């Protein structure tokens, strides 16, 4: 089979199945459609993860390889944070105290696992001693943005929140932790990723994020202009003929009967 066709069938169609499945599961009120949509998305994710074996010649399959490598720690972190959040003071759906400990453990293992991909033997490799190129995109972007967002959240809690100093300190701690990881990445070489490589990709990640923000804002602006131009060119509502004297008389009689009231 032609390589392009193979990549289209075994990588790009599964990629399109994920948003299509999500859209289908969220847009339909039927329970069966929701399940079908979720199944479609799940199948898409599995096929993307299998793409290094199904389409080994396609460079895009490196993204599938990365997804397979990071899905474990990422799910651990997200599930861990979910367990921590809902075992606290929430009005509904409160989980037990033991779930909190499990959550902390899961989130911790997730972060250590991701850090181990940089400084230990867990680095995603598409061939022996060849680091997955998309790992250089994911890791610096993730820790830099986590540090920025946590710092922003900490200041927001302090300035807008009411007596949120403890929560703010927690966010400063998360920001500091990510910041330390960034500094370590710049100065301590891993077995496959050197500090200089990390530095180069860190600043590329900054360029990447700035570009994404610029492109997204531009498209939203164009979208707003298109809607504005259309709405402005719509004709005004049609005028109706004024009421006749008899209609006015009838209305004033009706109003008069409803004005005032009986004294108690």
């Amino acid at each position, binding site marked *: 089979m032609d390589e392009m066709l193979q990549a289209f069938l075994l990588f790009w169609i599964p990629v399109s199945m994920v948003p299509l499945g999500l859209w289908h599961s969220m847009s339909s009120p039927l329970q069966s459609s929701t399940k079908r949509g979720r199944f479609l998305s799940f199948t898409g994710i599995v096929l993307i993860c299998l793409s290094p074996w199904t389409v080994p010649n396609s460079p895009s399959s490196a993204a599938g390889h990365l997804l397979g490598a990071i899905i474990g720690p990422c799910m651990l972190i997200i599930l861990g944070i979910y367990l921590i959040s809902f075992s606290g003071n*929430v009005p509904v759906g409160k989980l037990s105290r033991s779930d909190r400990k499990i959550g902390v453990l899961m989130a911790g293992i997730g972060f250590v696992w991701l850090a181990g991909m940089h400084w230990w033997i867990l680095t995603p490799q598409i061939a022996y001693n060849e680091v997955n190129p998309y790992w250089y995109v994911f890791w610096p972007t993730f820790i830099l943005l986590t540090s920025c967002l946590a710092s*922003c959240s900490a200041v927001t809690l302090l300035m807008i929140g009411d007596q949120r100093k403890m929560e703010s300190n927690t966010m400063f701690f998360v920001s500091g932790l990510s910041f330390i990881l960034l500094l370590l990445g710049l100065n301590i070489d891993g077995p496959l990723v050197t500090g200089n490589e990390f530095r180069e990709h860190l600043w590329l990640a900054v360029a990447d994020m700035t570009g994404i923000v610029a492109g997204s804002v531009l498209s939203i602006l164009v979208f707003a202009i298109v809607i504005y131009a*259309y709405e402005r060119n719509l004709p005004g509502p049609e005028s109706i003929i004024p009421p006749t004297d008899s209609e006015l008389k009838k209305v004033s009689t009706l109003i008069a009967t409803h004005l005032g009231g009986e004294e108690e």
Partner: protein
Amino acid sequence: MKESNIGFTWRMMILAFLLPPLLILAIDMTFFDDFKPIDSGVSFTRFTNATLTAYTLCSLFLLGNLFFYGESRNRPWAPLVGMVMATALGVLATVFFIGQGSMLLEDNGSVRAQAIYNIVHMFVSSGSILMAFSVALGVTFSAITSQKQRNNFELEEE
């Protein structure tokens, strides 16, 4: 909140967001002699590719939204055509600029390879951004729910 206070809060929030990369830059330049400024050409290439790809993909997403917007407006063609043209402009601009030579070609040999690489790169970057947002929002939420329950009606009870 007063208007001047709102402005100050926004400025502080933006500064807090920008603080980590600025600190990294300052520390790296101050304490480590081997600081090598990155090649601005490579950064510019990445920035431009990211901008063009984000514009095109975001326009496609918004085009899908226009379809639902049309439900309340008797399915008008004008905005739909306008947005299709805006999206097509993004695709054409991407192809045109990549085709100009080595300016926007990274390690890829052809326009098609670079365009496909840009899309895959955008998926990975978006996944990373989504994950960072999930962690930051999730930890904020868990930090708030971890505190003792507050009584907001103390004054009323008195």
